Each structure stands twice: as C-alpha cells, then as structure tokens.
C-alpha cells in the first residue's frame, strides 16, 4: 500500500526533538540504571509519555495523533535509546498496532480505536509470536473460529511486549486452518483483555528490563466480527508483514541509539582513564576501537535515514529497512562490546551503563525479524531487482 505518508517539517522536527531531549535528560537518563537493575516497570514514565503525546506519535492528525514522519520518529526513538532503550518499547509496539489499524482497518475501526490509541487511554502491542513459531509465522496455532456473529479465539502468544500493562493487541490468528498456503487462512484482530483473554507470566530476560514481555492466553475468548481488521478474513499475514518496514526502521533507530551511547561513554572514559602515564585514548589499540565504533554509528544512522526517507516517500523499502535494521543492530552489539573492553573492569561493573548496553543490544538482532532473516530478505530483493 502506498498511501500518502506522514510528513514533518524541519521546524517542527527541531521543536519536537528538542522537547524529547529535554524530557530524556530530566526524566529518563537519571532513572535508567535504577529501574533496569530493579526490573521495575516505570509507571510514571508512561504517564509522562502520555502527556508528551508519544502514544500518538505516528498516528495521523485526523485521528488525534501527531502524524510524525518515519524520519522524525526514528530520530526521536534514537534520542531516547541513547539514554535508555527499553522504554521505547512501551510506545513502539503500541504504534505498530496502531499502524495496522490505520493502514488496514475499516473507517469504523479507525474512528473507534485510533483516537484512544493516540491519547494512550488504550495501550498495547502486537501479538504475533507463539511458543512454537516466531520467524515462521505461518505455523502459528492460535485459531479464531466463527461463532454466531463473532469469533471464538483459542491459543497462546509469547514474548508479547506490553503484555502485562497493555490491554489491547493486534492479534494474528488462523481463521481457516485448512488453507494452503497457510497464510491465506490467517486473520488479524484487535482484541482487548476480558473474560477468556488473560496475561500469562511475565518473562524474565537478559536485558530490555523493566518492560513487560509476557504470554497472552486465549481460552474461548469471544470477539465481535467488527474486531476483524479490515473486515475481511485471510489478510492477516499481509497485515503483519505490512507493519514490518516501519517496525524495522524503529528497531534500527534503537540500535543507533545504543551504538551512540556506547561510543559517547567510551570517548569520555578513554580521555579520563590513564594507564602507563597517559590517557588510554592515546594508546593506539583504543584509538582503533574508537575509530571503528564512530564509523559504525555514522553508517548505521545514514542507513536508517535513507530507509526512513524512502518510507516517507511512500516507496517500497523492505530491503533498505532490512539493511538498516541488520547493520544498526549489529553496530549496537559490536559497540557495546568494544565499550566494555575500553572500560576494562568498569565495563563489567553494574555501576556503569556499559553493561546495560551490552545486555540490551542483542534484542535488536532478534526482534522484528532476526538478522539472519534480514540477510535473506536483502538477498532476495537484490536478485528480484537485478534479474540476470
């Protein structure tokens, strides 16, 4: 779908990013280490995000959102991730759910949900993954069976971001289990928690702490037919895949933020820490690392900007978004490792932020399509765009 995409003027972007930076410095950076270590949900940040308008960041202005372009949104995500990546998940997957409704929903669904998504009154995320199926989404088992005027949903989702504190999810199901190929029998629903739809346990993780990743359990959960996105069965897989371009740009933007944070801390520390009579920044071994790290940051940022620009122009950008996601997430992992080495023992200490970058970065390689899959997508696109 190449509908007219959001545009944000340079002046608006300057104001918006300035406001976000000020908020980050005052409210996010000072609490990151404490909340990450305690694995405590930052409820007050959610209230502030609501006031700031973040839950409507990319939702169109006609539905009460800010209608930010992907480019501006990506920069915003990077700024927050430079201080603490995890909280971006609170509104990122929420906005992917919103984008699904905005791009593929009926007008009635848009009117009904988008204004409440934009204010954050209704918050949630995206429910695709199941215990037995992540990458291979066509193997999911959650079913939605017709039942009178509605559907009965049964199954279990896992790893769902905002699963505990969110109440509304875009849910991928199978409405026709006999369909071949399976994706033709898949349908997306917008579901709100209620009898038959409960959250399972909160999942414990290496990083991405403080944010709830959870199982969602559906046991004879009844929804009205008007919750079927777009009102037509069999399009759910396209809806899921349709959100991935923007989703990958988001994840890439977080990767840039983490890579930048690791570089920033390293540049400072390398000038402060002295060994053998000089700052370690003057040792060539450290300089080689800093040189690589800075180059990765710059390259990752440029890839994200290029992909976002294409997205904003309404062009196909699955290859570009895949490249940005692949490179930026690996840059985050590499930079956090280099930062740890530059910091020596202190990089391993929980009194510094480097160990958090190191735990947070690998998620960027997994979410929104693993990096293995990104490479495959890029290669397929290369072949498709360059027939022999």
């Amino acid at each position, binding site marked *: 779908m190449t509908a007219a995409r959001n545009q944000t003027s340079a002046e608006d972007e300057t*104001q918006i990013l300035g406001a976000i930076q000020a908020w980050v410095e005052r409210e996010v950076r000072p609490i990151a280490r404490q909340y990450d270590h305690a694995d405590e949900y930052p409820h007050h940040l959610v209230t502030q995000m609501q006031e700031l308008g973040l839950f409507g960041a990319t939702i169109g202005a006609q539905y009460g959102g800010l209608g930010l372009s992907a480019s501006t949104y990506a920069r915003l995500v990077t700024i927050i991730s430079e201080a603490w990546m995890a909280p971006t998940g609170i509104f990122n997957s929420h906005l992917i759910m919103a984008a699904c409704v905005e791009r593929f929903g009926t007008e009635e669904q848009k009117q009904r949900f988008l204004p409440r998504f934009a204010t954050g009154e209704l918050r949630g995320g995206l429910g695709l993954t199941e215990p037995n199926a992540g990458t291979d989404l066509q193997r999911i088992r959650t079913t939605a069976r017709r039942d009178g005027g509605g559907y009965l949903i049964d199954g279990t989702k896992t790893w769902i971001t905002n699963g505990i504190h969110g109440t509304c999810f875009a849910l991928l199901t199978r409405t026709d289990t006999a369909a071949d190929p399976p994706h033709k029998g898949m349908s997306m629903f917008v579901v709100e928690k209620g009898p038959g739809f409960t959250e399972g346990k909160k999942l414990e993780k290496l990083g991405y702490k403080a944010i709830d990743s959870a199982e969602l359990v559906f046991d004879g959960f009844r929804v009205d037919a008007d919750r079927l996105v777009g009102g037509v069965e069999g399009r759910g897989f396209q809806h899921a895949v349709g959100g991935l371009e923007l989703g990958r740009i988001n994840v890439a933007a977080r990767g840039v933020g983490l890579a930048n944070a690791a570089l920033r801390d390293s540049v400072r520390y390398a000038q402060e820490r002295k060994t053998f009579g000089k700052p370690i920044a003057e040792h060539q071994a450290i300089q080689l690392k800093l040189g690589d790290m800075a180059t990765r940051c710059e390259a990752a940022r440029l890839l994200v900007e290029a992909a976002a620009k294409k997205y904003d122009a309404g062009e196909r950008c699955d290859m570009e978004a895949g490249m940005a996601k692949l490179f930026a997430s690996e840059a985050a992992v590499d930079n956090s490792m280099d930062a740890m080495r530059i910091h020596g023992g202190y990089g391993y200490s929980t009194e510094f932020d480097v160990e958090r970058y190191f735990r947070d970065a690998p998620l960027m390689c997994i979410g929104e399509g693993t990096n293995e899959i990104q490479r495959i997508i890029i290669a397929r696109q290369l072949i498709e765009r360059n027939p022999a």
Partner: protein
Amino acid sequence: MAVDVGGLSPYDWGPTIRAACFGCGKSMKKIMVCLKRVVDYNVRVRVKADGTGVVTDGVKMSINPFDEIALEEALRIRERGGAAEVVVVTIGPADCQQQLRTGLAMGADRAILVEHGTELEPLAVAGLLLKLVEKEHPDLVIVGKQAIDDDCNQTGQMLAALWDRPQATFASKLEVDGDRIRVTREVDAGLEVIEADLPAVVTTDLRLNEPRYVKLPDIMKAKKKPLEILAAGSLGAALEPSLRTTGYAPPPERQKGAMVADVDALVGALRDKGFLG
C-alpha cells in the same frame, strides 16, 4: 468528621478563603516574558578560529534557562487565574522564532520578535523592551536574572530604570496580591522579602520553579498562535553600542599539577612560586 456550618464544611474554608483573598480585587491583564536565544547549556562552547566570537553554526540553541523559569512562573500565575495573557518577546535574528515557538508550545498566548541581526548591549535591549512595554502595557514583566552566554545580569534592572517602575531581582518566590507583588530574593546574607507595586520588573533565580517540559501536541497547536515580527530599527530605540569587543579567546588550558612528597615540600613549592611570604 465534618461539622455542618451553614452548608459549608470547615474543610472547605481553606480553599474558599484563599480563593477569595487571592488577588483581592482584579487579576492582571498581561504578563510579558522576555526570552533570549542562547547556546544550549549542554554545549561545550568553542571560540571561532578568527577570535570574532563563539561558534554558533550547527550548535544547539535554546531558551536561556533563567528565561524559561520566567515563562514558567508567568504561566503558573495565569493558570491560577492571576493573569489573563502571557506574551513572550525576544530580540534577535529571524532564527529566534524557534525559541518563541517553544515558548508558545510551553503555553504563552502570543509572541513578538524584534528582529535584529547583530549583537546588542543590555542597554539597547532594555531600550527596545521599553518600547514593547509602552506598546503592550503589561502589568508585570518577568525576565531571567542573566543570560548564560554573556552573564551580563543588567537587562531587567535597566528596563525597570528606563520604565521608572519597581524592580525585584533574583526572585526565588513570587506572590501576586492584587496590585502588589511579594518577592523572596536570594541574597548573600540569606533570603530577603520585598514588596512592590505593579507594574514592575521581576528577574528570576534558578530556584523559583522547575519549568515544565514541552508536550508534542502543544508544539503542533502553537503553530496557530500569533507571532508578530517587528524590525528593531522601526521602534525608535538607540541601538548604537558603547563598548567595542576587541577579541574572544578561550580560557587558558589548566596547567598540569605536580605531586609533592610531604607538607614541607608543599610549603617550599608554594614559597618558590611566591604564594607564601
């Protein structure tokens, strides 16, 4: 347990009485807040290679933090019902519209840019502000006690003098009561409380308040608020400088320190450098 006192619970008295007392009489019509565009406080300032000023190209610019506090205070007064309108003004190049837009997004009702391309001295700024005061007739003018770029700490005082109205500088608390203000000032000896008649000029200290952060939807809404642009030359204020800046230089690099073995060596070293008799 609530006692019934003619339909009024005693628990209602506090707010009722306060609301009745507040501003015994009228609330202000207008507060004017003066903002200056400065290099952001987080930026490491660098002197231009040719020594003609500091680098501002590509550098993040912001509202002077003291002025942001001034605006926050004005907004709080308005939100309490103590003023009808808050107008933000600035003097400087066209780019200053950015800071005015931020001010509007924070909540100011209206903005005025006095456009001028070159650096102005505090007296010229105060002279221009006086022209705006004569045009706008604010009941109260709030400005930062100083700008973090030149640290002059003069503009508010000069404006009060030119306007011939009271000034209350370095405010850490500001209370409005009808036609009067009560200002707590931070002075070397501690806290000083003064009262002044309106209209007056107040300059803000850091501890007056913590400014709100700007909400993104308000940035969008602020685009519809009026922003008037006036040419500095059209206001009839004297702008000619009375000082000439001969050069800018970064502070000298800190000299490397030396370790001494003991107190005797320290005393010896200080004596060698002429710091001890």
